């Protein structure tokens, strides 16, 4: 049973593994994430970070191992049910509804959280509260003036912000950000980091953040875990993990190439 010093983790993976043919993309990763913490997940490209996320949020089915949310096994649940259990996901490759407006993209996330998806005989805009909330969310990510544009007409940076807005609109207990600032212009990055910082400041949300930029990781993370060839190879305080030989060797060399 959980004790006061070590409560039930918000999220835990036990021996989580997926094999694509002969290739083990995520290899027996066991890791617990405590409520209210922000964990950065780092590792070179192809390390398995996105695949690890896909296994947690249900986009991929694990070959072995399990995923637990608040101590309850959700390994067999489809992605939609995991979302209702409190897992929320923003994608590395922008993954939106390309022909619907930005507002409708966000409203759909809010509508899901409100559990209104099965309402068939009301006009969609009867729920004005959902629309107002979506508008406020777009305001938050500085997209209010582009709310009637569809993602396919938005710039890459704006698409990334919309991607973040969809996750924030769901307001899950567990936020999973997969390289949220990748490909953004320098002046857009602080907006997104500030949003993540605000979510963290609430203290009741658990955050997983895949991020390459070491200064970002250093300033936001309570903890860093390192994935390498699908395996968890380091785990601990940001300063000590960053200083560890394995990170210096396997990862930080790559960071120079990224920046």
């Amino acid at each position, binding site marked *: 049973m959980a004790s006061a010093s070590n409560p039930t983790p918000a999220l835990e993976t036990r021996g989580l593994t997926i094999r694509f043919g002969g290739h083990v993309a995520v290899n027996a990763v066991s890791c617990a994430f405590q409520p209210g913490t922000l964990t950065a997940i780092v590792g070179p490209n192809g390390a398995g970070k996105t695949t690890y996320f896909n296994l947690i*949020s249900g*986009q991929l089915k694990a070959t072995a191992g399990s995923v637990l949310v608040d101590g309850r096994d959700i390994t067999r649940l*489809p*992605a*939609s*049910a995991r*979302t*209702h259990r409190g897992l929320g*996901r923003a*994608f590395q490759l922008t*993954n*939106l*509804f*390309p*022909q*619907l407006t930005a*507002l*409708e993209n966000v*409203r*759909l*996330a809010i*509508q*899901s*959280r409100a559990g*209104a*998806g*099965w*309402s*068939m*005989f*009301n*006009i*969609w*805009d009867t*729920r*004005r509260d959902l*629309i*107002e909330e979506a*508008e*406020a969310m777009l*305001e938050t990510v500085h997209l*209010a003036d582009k*709310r*009637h544009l569809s993602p396919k007409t938005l710039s890459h940076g704006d698409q990334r912000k919309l991607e973040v807005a*969809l996750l924030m609109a*769901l307001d899950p207990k567990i936020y999973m950000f997969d390289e949220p600032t990748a490909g953004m212009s320098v002046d857009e990055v602080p907006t997104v980091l500030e949003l993540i910082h605000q979510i963290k400041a609430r203290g009741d949300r658990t955050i997983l953040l895949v991020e390459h930029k070491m200064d970002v990781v250093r300033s936001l993370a309570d903890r860093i875990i390192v994935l390498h060839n699908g395996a968890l190879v380091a785990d601990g305080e940001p300063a000590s993990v960053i200083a560890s030989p394995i990170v210096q060797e396997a990862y930080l060399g790559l960071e120079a190439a990224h920046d």
Partner: protein
Amino acid sequence: MTDATLSSLPVSSLPRQGGLLRTILSADPPRSKALSLLLLVVLLALVATPFALPGSQPLGTAAKICIFILLAASYDLLLGYTGIVSFAHTMFFGIGGYGIAIALNKLGATWSSVFIGLVAALALSAALAFIIGLVSLRVRAIFFSMITLAVASAVLVLASQMSGITGGEDGMSFQLPPELRPAFKLGTFLDTAINGRLLAYYLVFFVALGMFLLLLRIVNSPFGRVLQAIRENEFRAEALGYRVVSYRIAASVISALAATVAGALLALWLRYNGPDTTLSFAIMIDVLLMVVIGGMGTMYGAVIGAALFVLAQSYLQVLMGSISESLAAVPLLASLTHPDRWLLWLGILFVASVYAFPGGIVGRLRKTS
């Protein structure tokens, strides 16, 4: 909400409240003057046909237009809004037709037979659509298409062979309840006899209209928005918490129920049902064309597509007959315009229109306005 609070909101894109027309059209107006006009013409023509155009042929064409608008609209819910292709739509159309035909033929020409036949058909359609969806939509949308093709073929064979129940290839005629028979007379209005035939027509008209508006409401509901999200990106819809397979099954059941009602209406109108009037794959192709020509994912496209298609089917041959006669002196042209070639010309017209208006007629009209 008052104007003051509205304008004090940070952004002023909130939809306008109220308006009976807005409620009837579920906040989804035609959004094009030309389209509004066209829809109004179709509506008025369908309302006025019994009084404006005497004779049974125009009335039959009008009834058929009403029924195919409903059939095409229900197919659009699946194809245009949810993005899945079914080949079983006429199977549900046929189930509706057989439900009415068998009940009225075996249980007698009463309203309770109509009710029993319709309810039994709706139940069978819902069960079939649910089971087909459950076994196939979990896998992949393309698998669903293949399963619907297989099941629809099997049902077609079954209906043709179980002649004891369905009348086999010949189909089955029956008597209508007394109020819908031509002999039932209420008097005259605007020089037109108000008889059972006219009542039957307005029954078809109002049920089709009501069902169309219901479908329009469903596609514009929070549920309908989820269907469109699934069409756009099923992966993200699932990640947002929408169980895609359940929504697809629900869409498929709703679409099947509406097609069943359309089939029941056609049987009531024709006082007959058989494989060729409701079950055949030829009708399946017609419905597909109506939706594509009219404009997928618009609902109004079904109205325009069905009206044009049925009119072309009914009058193109007549038109071609007269052209062919006047071209009798030119052998090749005369044989090309022979009424037997009407399907060829219809095909050419459709290919040309799909090529010219990829978004269908409704898409085209909305773009210009």
